[in-house]
């Protein structure tokens, strides 16, 4: 796997070099280099449920980014890398988040390389979003993603919306916390001990299509993915070890948002077919914002979403029949201060997850972020979530931008 990654990087370095050479003659080549240094501290105050789990996790991360643009910005090479050192060995990781060449002309756009793509409209769960593997050791909410090798072709029409085609030649495996990490199962899952349904394993050539359109208040997306699933199933081998198994799946997704005055009505739903399981899942809800309440820019948004997953207790997201209620407060001040509160409640038991995320800027190039998650009254029936019942945590992150 590593060998392939190096090969891919080599090809790209060569490609970017030759592209840069070819276009150096043309004027208006612009370069930009950015660097983010991040210090993070996570604290789990409850005594660990499983052996070997630590309570405190100081950590450092580095995120360099480089962009070269030419042809008035219609052509570019974009690179973004990620390095983290953490007390949990599995969380100490390196990833090439993005490294792609892009060309746009008239109403089409082509991207080739490692890239991140996001689909969807909901806040509490991201069902439709399937192109990239989740960087599961990086964040609890699943919004951090691993770079996905792809060829992406987008074709925009004024009357029929945008059509996108994805060719995905390589599958990225999800990483799970190691033995001393929190938010894991009783036995830590070894990232490299995985099974694939496909004989081609991670080299299965996957495809995806998406159509996105907007008509007045309606934004609608329809997508289909055929390939190695991003979400693993868990299987036990002969020795009783749990390992991740990636089935071949067909997944059709719908995302819809209706934007009417201060209301955003949202729906995401998927139907996933695999040999061992077919299921339906959805999230539906609304967001309403009271804006500029104090005449000084204070916005208070209310969020409500219902989550359903036909897999029930075995849904990896543990959001099988739940209600999310939250509020987003934005101060719209010079420091961009904002706070997001939320509660996810299981409608069949008393299981609750409370969360708070707050962030602001200091000066021109520093930011601070605070995140807290509380697992409360987690029911023994929750096959996935019950493993995390002692993993309530507080996370503080300070970033410096160069």
């Amino acid at each position: 796997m590593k060998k392939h990654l190096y090969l891919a990087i080599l090809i790209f370095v060569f490609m970017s070099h030759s592209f840069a050479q070819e276009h150096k003659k043309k004027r208006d080549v612009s370069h930009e280099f950015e660097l983010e240094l991040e210090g993070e501290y996570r604290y789990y105050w409850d005594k660990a449920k499983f052996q070997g789990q630590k309570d405190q996790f100081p950590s450092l991360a580095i995120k360099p980014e480089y962009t070269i643009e030419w042809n008035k910005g219609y052509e570019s090479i974009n690179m973004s890398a990620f390095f983290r050192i953490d007390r949990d060995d599995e969380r100490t990781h390196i990833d090439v988040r993005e490294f792609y060449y892009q060309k746009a002309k008239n109403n089409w756009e082509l991207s080739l390389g490692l890239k991140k793509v996001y689909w969807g409209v909901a806040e509490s769960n991201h069902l439709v979003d399937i192109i990239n593997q989740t960087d599961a050791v990086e964040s609890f909410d699943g919004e951090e993603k691993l770079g996905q090798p792809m060829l992406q072709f987008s074709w925009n029409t004024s009357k029929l919306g945008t059509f996108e085609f994805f060719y995905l030649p390589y599958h990225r495996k999800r990483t799970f916390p190691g033995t001393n990490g929190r938010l894991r199962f009783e036995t830590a899952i070894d990232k490299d001990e995985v099974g694939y349904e496909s004989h081609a394993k991670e080299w299965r050539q996957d495809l995806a299509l998406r159509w996105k359109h907007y008509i007045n208040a309606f934004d609608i997306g329809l997508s289909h993915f055929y390939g190695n699933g991003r979400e693993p199933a868990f299987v036990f081998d002969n020795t009783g070890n749990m390992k991740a198994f990636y089935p071949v799946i067909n997944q059709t997704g719908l995302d819809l948002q209706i934007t009417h005055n201060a209301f955003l009505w949202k729906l995401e739903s998927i139907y996933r077919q695999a040999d061992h399981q077919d299921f339906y899942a959805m999230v539906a809800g609304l967001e309403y914002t009271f804006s500029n309440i104090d005449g000084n820019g204070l916005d208070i948004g209310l969020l409500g979403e219902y989550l359903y997953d036909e897999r029930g207790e075995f849904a990896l997201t543990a959001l099988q029949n739940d209600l999310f209620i939250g509020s987003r407060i934005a101060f719209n001040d010079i420091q961009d201060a904002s706070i997001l509160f939320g509660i996810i409640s299981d409608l069949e038991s008393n299981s609750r997850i409370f969360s708070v995320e707050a962030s602001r800027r200091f000066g021109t190039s520093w930011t601070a972020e605070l995140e807290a998650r509380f697992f409360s009254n987690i029911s023994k029936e929750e096959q996935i979530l019950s493993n995390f019942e002692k993993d309530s945590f507080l996370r503080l992150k300070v970033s410096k931008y160069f």
Partner: protein
Amino acid sequence: MKTALSIVLIVLGINLVSAQSTSNRGLEIAKLAEQADLGFGSSIVELKMTLKNKNGQLSERYLSTKTLELTKDGDKSLIVFNSPKDVKGTATLTFTHKVGSDDQWLYLPSIKRIKRISSNNKSGPFVGSEFAYEDLSSQEVEKYSYKFIDEKGSFLRVEQDPVDPKSGYTKRLVTYNKDKGYRIEKVEFYDRKNALLKTLTYSEYKLYKNKFWRAGSFNMVNHQTHKETLLQFSDYDFEQNLREADFTEVALKRAGK
């Protein structure tokens, strides 16, 4: 003389016919200003926004703006933040409509997400500045009703009352310069209680392509909070021939990276 007379008549509130005529004259001026700017096609400009609080502390941000002129409907615009660095790449795509609310999308570069946002919040401040969203959106003639106030030399003053009840203003008092292609020199904003809230002064005007006046500097002063926001523009680029394809969700993601 005729004008002076009609002002007197309005002040006294006697003559409905002249009220009608002041409203016609106001609308006529707004239309002349719009006409003077017809045919710019598309433009690209970089700008520096300096926010000053009441203690004089400064905070800066850099943005770039692309605009596409449309005649049947309102203009399209794409704004990208280049600094502060933690929000670099954050971008908005706006389709202004002559009638009804605008369509707007926000791009969040950290998770590559595009979110359609409500354009309901017209009166709220744009990124902590003294500019409200409605101050920066495309100024379509249909968005106001008009009342001509007075004429002093080449300066014409017109009262503009927002049609949309969600506006943060009861009125704007706009000073046009009729000898310079009806460019706007100054706007005074009156809040919902009809008290003077802000004054926006345009300066460092440049004439492009012998037809289009563009101010190099916008200074907005809030009289109630004593905060200020200064926008300083680079030279406008009218030569890029931007097209509709440069104002789509695909283009929004590309601009924000």
